[in-house]
């Protein structure tokens, strides 16, 4: 019989080692796989995508910035540029490089795959928004044109990705979202968020942490060189201009805004109280959102609080005759206009 102490130590060691190897997202196995995926093909495609974006934003694409985006040395980056050029996807004139039509097509195909995959992740999987971009960055290189077509079909040919960016059509048309940066929005105007840039991730995570999402209505209170103070739905945010610049907005016509922003979250109602649904926040998306609509929770529906779980969550609501329990994370996203008791009596 093995000495128990030695067996114990070996056991702990084995557990520890397997955690080191198999731990999702940071284990050795995962890193190895990630490294293997970083082939020339991927680097070429990333190069094309980068130059495509630079051209659209009318920024010069330099070797340094390319090496930065690919996170490789400048030597390796120029190697990749040479291969890309040899394939006829890229043209060099002096220090500047630009895409050939074939290169642009490939870049658009990658962007299309990327945005469709993000749409897919947002609508038909349970991944959170901070996971979308990372995953799409890897998948965009693996989806063939046919895969992309199939994906688009299965999603009902969506038009925009979950960040509000338009998805290029299979023919390669790409329209712009036409918004302006939130940092440029005049004070006291309200606007709808049409797009949130998901790169760099550091800034994106900050925006998501503020609970800001495409289709939300915002109103700017104050703009100074160090900060932008604004309201969204029901709370105030303060962001640095550099962060706010990554949010694109389209100014709203006056009457729409009043209608959209009214209402309190459903989860603030108490047992016995009633409210009329005014809006469902765009934060609720995909299957979850459709389910709410199918249950009859649409603007104008009367919702009464029936009972609360002994622990405080979920809460059961009477919705069009049926008692349906929702969690507070869902009810929070449903905005209602409270109905006072007098109003209730009149309606009866």
């Amino acid at each position, binding site marked *: 019989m093995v000495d128990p102490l030695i067996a114990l130590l070996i056991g702990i060691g084995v557990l520890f080692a397997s955690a080191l190897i198999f731990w999702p997202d940071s284990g050795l196995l995962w890193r190895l796989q990630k490294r293997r995926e970083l082939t020339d093909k991927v680097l070429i495609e990333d190069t094309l995508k980068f130059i495509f974006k630079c051209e659209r934003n009318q920024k010069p694409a330099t070797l340094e910035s390319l090496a930065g985006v690919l996170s490789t040395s400048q030597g390796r980056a120029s190697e990749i540029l040479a291969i890309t050029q040899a394939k006829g996807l890229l043209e060099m004139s002096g220090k500047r490089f630009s895409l050939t039509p074939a290169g642009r097509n490939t870049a658009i195909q990658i962007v299309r795959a990327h945005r469709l995959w993000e749409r*897919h992740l947002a609508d038909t999987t349970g991944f959170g928004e901070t996971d979308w971009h990372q995953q799409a960055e890897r998948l965009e290189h693996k989806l063939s044109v046919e895969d992309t077509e199939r994906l688009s079909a*299965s999603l009902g040919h*969506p038009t925009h990705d979950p960040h509000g960016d338009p998805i290029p059509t299979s023919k390669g048309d790409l329209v712009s979202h036409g918004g302006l940066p939130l940092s440029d929005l005049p004070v006291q105007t309200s606007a709808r968020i049409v797009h949130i840039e998901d790169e760099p991730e550091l800034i994106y995570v900050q925006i998501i942490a503020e609970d800001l999402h495409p289709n939300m209505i915002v109103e700017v209170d104050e703009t100074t060189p160090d900060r932008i103070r604004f309201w969204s739905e029901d709370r105030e945010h303060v962001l640095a201009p550099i962060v706010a610049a990554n949010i694109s907005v389209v100014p709203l016509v006056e009457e729409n805004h009043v209608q959209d922003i009214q209402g309190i979250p459903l989860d603030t109602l108490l047992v016995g109280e009633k409210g009329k649904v005014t809006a469902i926040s765009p934060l609720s998306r995909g299957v979850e959102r*459709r389910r709410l609509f199918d249950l009859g929770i649409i603007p104008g529906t009367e919702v009464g609080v029936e009972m609360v779980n002994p622990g405080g969550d979920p809460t059961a609501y009477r919705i069009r*005759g*049926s008692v349906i329990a929702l969690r507070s994370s869902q009810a929070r996203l449903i905005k209602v206009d409270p109905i006072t008791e007098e109003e209730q009596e009149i309606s009866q």
Partner: protein
Amino acid sequence: MEKDLNKTNQVEISESQAQAGCASCPAHNAANLQKLGVDMENWDFVVALAGNPNTGKSTVFNALTGLHQHTGNWPGKTVTRAEGGFDYGENRYKLVDLPGTYSLLATSLDEEIARDFILFGQPDVTVVVVDAARLERNLNLVLQVLEITNRVVICLNLVDEAERHNISVDDRRLARDLGVPVVPTVARYDEGLEELLAAISEVASGKTQATPYHVKYTHPKLDQAVSKLVSQIQEAFPQVPNARWVALRLLDGDERIIKAVEKGDLGELTYTVENLDGLGVDTVALKSGFRL
């Protein structure tokens, strides 16, 4: 064979009378029913039973079939179904219990199954069981069924429970508004079943001609878009009875319907590998072996 006859009949006769073209022959699509796992041997008509969850649908089912039923799964799926039969008059009816759903927009597997059955199986009658105490919620499903087929009987169930809650439903008014027969029942105590059977047989044999109510879409752009598509669909598929519904599904990007138009076999059921995936686990990823 029978189906082809139907088609030619319908094309020859003017559209409004298409259903009356063959008053007594069954309307169901036998080939598709077979694919849906329904054995139609020895049965004259097939009746689908739809309804919201908790409307006493299974009580109605049991009341109609007695204990002559069996349960199983839909082909390739994990949703149970009960099947049974009954005789009425001179005909034998097969009754298929569809999953209870709030809606038919194919958001969940249950909804997809119920929708597919009504759309592709083309049952001779679809009975929608409705909870009289929760009429508004239940009518949502009824209106969706009426978009797909006009061979519908509404079973207004649980009227006793509604009365206890001081709710009374004017079934004749409802029938007039919806344009299809409405039969009040208390299935638990076998009340109203005779009338329900009579209504089913009249719709099945084509004696009752329904002019069902169609939802008005308030969205102006939507209306335009739908009518534009409808005319195109009617041109390409003159035999399709529910062009408006097909147009709506196309606009919603319903892949199953898009495929059917693409192949030109609207009305034909084609099961694809994706649909065999019981839990709706991401199919693209599975097929290409990607790590999620």
